């Protein structure tokens, strides 16, 4: 349905993806207004429980954006993220929640355009997937 406005949560790490988002802003790269950024110190500090909480309570999509492997301000923080999120996606898939609602990607401080691309494509993907089925499911 066309007027479906997806609500999307994005975790951005202070050193790379948050700075990339800032650069996208400074370069006035336009993107859909459905993404809400939470600044964390490192993508590795994003607890999978947050993602589960968000998805199970109606958030349509969660973006976890960290530094490129090797760029992490905290050395190998983003390695852990790179291990956790795929497993989380599989578990959600097992439970029937479409794993494409969760996306992990790497955006460096100099990649304003990539941030715009990731955000815009993710919103399109979520729009295609439609609203989160768990929204109406009343437990």
């Amino acid at each position, binding site marked *: 349905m066309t007027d479906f406005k997806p609500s999307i949560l994005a975790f951005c790490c202070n050193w790379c993806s948050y700075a990339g988002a800032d650069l996208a802003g*400074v370069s006035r790269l336009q993107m859909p207004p459905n993404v809400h950024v939470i600044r964390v110190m490192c993508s590795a500090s994003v607890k999978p429980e947050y993602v589960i909480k968000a998805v199970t309570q109606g958030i349509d999509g969660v973006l976890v954006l960290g530094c490129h492997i090797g760029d992490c301000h905290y050395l190998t923080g983003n390695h852990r993220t790179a291990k956790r999120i795929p497993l989380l996606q599989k578990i959600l898939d097992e439970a029937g929640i479409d794993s494409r609602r969760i996306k992990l990607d790497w955006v460096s401080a100099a990649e304003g355009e990539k941030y715009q691309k990731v955000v815009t494509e993710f919103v399109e993907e979520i729009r295609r997937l439609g609203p989160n089925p768990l929204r109406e499911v009343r437990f």
Partner: protein
Amino acid sequence: MKENVVVIGAGIAGIQASLDLADMGFSVHLIEKTPSIGGHMAQLDKTFPTNDCSMCILSPKMIMCAEHENITLHTYSEVDSIAGDFPRFKVGIREKARYIDLNRCTGCGDCVAKCPSKVPSEFEEGLSIRKAIYLPFPQAVPRKMTIDAENCRKIKDNKCGVCLKVCQAGAVDYDQKGRIVELDAAVIVIATGFDLMDATALPQFGYGICKDVVSSMQFERILSASGPTGGHLVRPSDDKEPVNLAFVQCVGSRDAKNHLYCSSVCCMYATKESILATEHAPDVKITIFYMDMRAVGKGFQEFVQRAKKSHGVRYVRSRPAKVQQANGDNGVLVSYETPGMTGEPVSEEYDMLILCPALLPSSSTREIAKMLDMELDDDGFFRTPDIRYPTDSSKKGILICGFSGAPMDIPDSVSQASGVAARTAELLSGGDR
């Protein structure tokens, strides 16, 4: 006891030098001719190549400068005399009368509203007016009013006096006198920056003749949200949004009859201003007349590519020779030779023309050089004799940084300003190499 260091000129170079010196533990006296620190960078809307809003990255440093316990500000003051030599200089600072009690004034602005006499504002490059009692710009530091004696009816011919009545803080004091502050200083840092060349000296460009020919600094003010037009891109003659506008580079620079040197920053700020212009007025078409597109810094080439590709800026490698009034009194006719193959004289009509005049060593650079008989190079910048110390002037103990030494952009000025702090520490720790 902390040694005293006097820094003359509070542009970005002076501010950065003062902050680094103060962080190193020296007691800094920062002298600024105008009522507020900030220098020309305060007038800029954005800075290249990241388009950071200039005031947003400058005001934190200005505030840190004002609040740093090791820095004493002497604004609206000039260097009266410098005697002695390294490391015991005697500096006389003439603090001009502001007719305002700095401790009481809160910068609320009630007086400005009532003041009757209007004066063209230097900060807005004459595009809008300020009052006789004024605050140079909203984010001024110190945020205190100043009464400009020449234009104040009360001080000049003892009439009016409305600001005294209106000021609840009772900060106005018409018989305040300027004073001379004597201080001794171990090292003197000169950061007197640049002045924009007055383009009326080149009548062929029509500055001051055609209304729609403006200087680049005026255009920066037009683009600025806190500027005279509130950020709306309109042309001076009829306040209409220009459809096509052009930049002319090297006005007075790279010109054997005026200034042979290249002012280093005009190519980049013209590109920046053109990108900003397309943001303010999306369907404006922009042409930049240039000689060599000197985009040499980090991210500069990509910046120019972006201007070309996603903002449709047209770069023409040619220097216009003549600018005449188009029809009526708005718009201009620019005649230049088409570059390359055709090579024939063409004149095109533009709604608005922005000149990028030469950036000259400032008048205070000359005054101070005369006062200390320091050597200037043939372009009027301070000579730095020893290549190992780019910030050492021809006199020991007197250091220079920023535009007073050579044309350079903000990052280089900031680097030199920090370099001055290192040299000061070297000189004063006796370990001079």
